[in-house]
């Protein structure tokens, strides 16, 4: 029979181990994020078919982000195929993690750009939230009706954000711009 005292000590030990391990893991992750360079962050961007993303995005908006007058022409099936379905959207979602890390980098390295960094973080999380809505729709079996609208707009946002990130990279005169351009 386990006494109350033994139980207390055992749970305390378990709690402590859990806290130490979690703190260690997240501290290590934070250190890794803090040690990230601009280059290593952008290298983490998932490989997405930029041509297809651009096609889906530019079907909805023009290069300046303004809605096109003609209205979208691509249908759901084409958008699904071009973006690689839900898997493709998940890749875009994962890339938003990089955007959040980029915000971390900007805030850490350039505290004066705090407002921009915070906004960048907010928007990246919002894109992730929209993608999560798509996942929810997929689970409920409503994906077909939701996909075209949600995915096309998320892709358009993503397209413009990555395009401007690329411009940012170029403006910062950072090495490896051409390789990155090819990757994006």
């Amino acid at each position, binding site marked *: 029979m386990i006494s109350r005292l033994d139980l207390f000590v055992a749970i305390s030990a378990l709690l402590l181990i859990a806290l130490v391990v979690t703190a260690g893991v*997240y501290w290590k992750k934070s250190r890794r994020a803090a040690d990230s360079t601009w280059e290593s962050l952008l290298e983490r961007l998932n490989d997405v078919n930029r041509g297809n993303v651009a096609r889906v995005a530019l079907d909805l908006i023009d290069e300046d982000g303004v809605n096109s007058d003609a209205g979208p022409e691509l249908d759901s099936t084409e958008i699904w195929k071009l973006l690689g379905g839900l898997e493709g959207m998940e890749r875009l979602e994962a890339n938003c993690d990089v955007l959040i890390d980029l915000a971390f980098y900007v805030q850490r390295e350039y505290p004066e750009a705090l407002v921009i960094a915070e906004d960048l973080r907010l928007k990246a999380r919002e894109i992730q939230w929209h993608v999560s809505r798509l996942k929810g729709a997929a689970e409920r079996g409503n994906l077909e009706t939701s996909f075209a609208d949600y995915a096309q707009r998320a892709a358009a946002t993503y397209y413009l954000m990555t395009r401007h990130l690329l411009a940012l990279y170029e403006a*910062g005169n950072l090495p490896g711009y051409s390789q990155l351009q090819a990757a994006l």
Partner: protein
Amino acid sequence: MHLSGFDFVNWLASFLGNLVLLAVLFGKRRFESFPVFTSWIVLSVIRTITLFFVRFLGSSSYFYVFWSFAFVDLSLQLVVFYEAAIHIFRPGPVWASHVRRAFAWIISLALLIGIGMTWLGVPATGELRGTIVIRADFLSSVLMSELFVGMLILSFRLGLPWKTHVARIVQGLGVYSMIGIISGSLQTYVGFPKDHAAYNAIFRCRVVGFLICQWFWIVSLYMEAPEPRKLPKEMHRQLILVQKRASLLLGRLSESQRS
């Protein structure tokens, strides 16, 4: 109340360490950024001086004053965490997005586990005041350890960096709180009436742990944080562009979802 030579050295080192820490906090003007942390150290100094004199008045008065200080000490330690949270999660004029709800969850969970653990433990004393002090001390250690880890997770997930001095204060407090869990559990296990020497030895180890954290704070708060870089003009302009485009598009996205 007799102090052994080792206890006296520990007590003196802790008191002098607090004075040095205060000198750093005021000398380097850190108190402007960390007023609550500074108040907590000031309280420790006042407590040490007060308890030194109160011990001549008898054990009843000593326990009353000790308990009163312990209550204020616990409250201040929790506010130190809140102060750190403001530095981390409210880098601008408003709290960062998605923070409040997550932080409320962390606090609720920490409280639930802390209260559960404190209820489970049976303090090694039959005296009511002693029981209250030991339980409150253990609760504070569990709560702050959990808050430390919770803040670490939340800041990483939200991509919010810790400035150097905030990080050092929270790390020191987090480590000291974890030492508090170890010592609290072990003291409960060995029991005061059963093994007086072991109980005191654990307490001394905890004081040594505090001294290490104290000097960690002194050194890290004495040192200057790395100088931030100047944002190149073109990079700044481009960042604003990214921000504007994203705002514009997400606004439309939200509108279309509402319609």
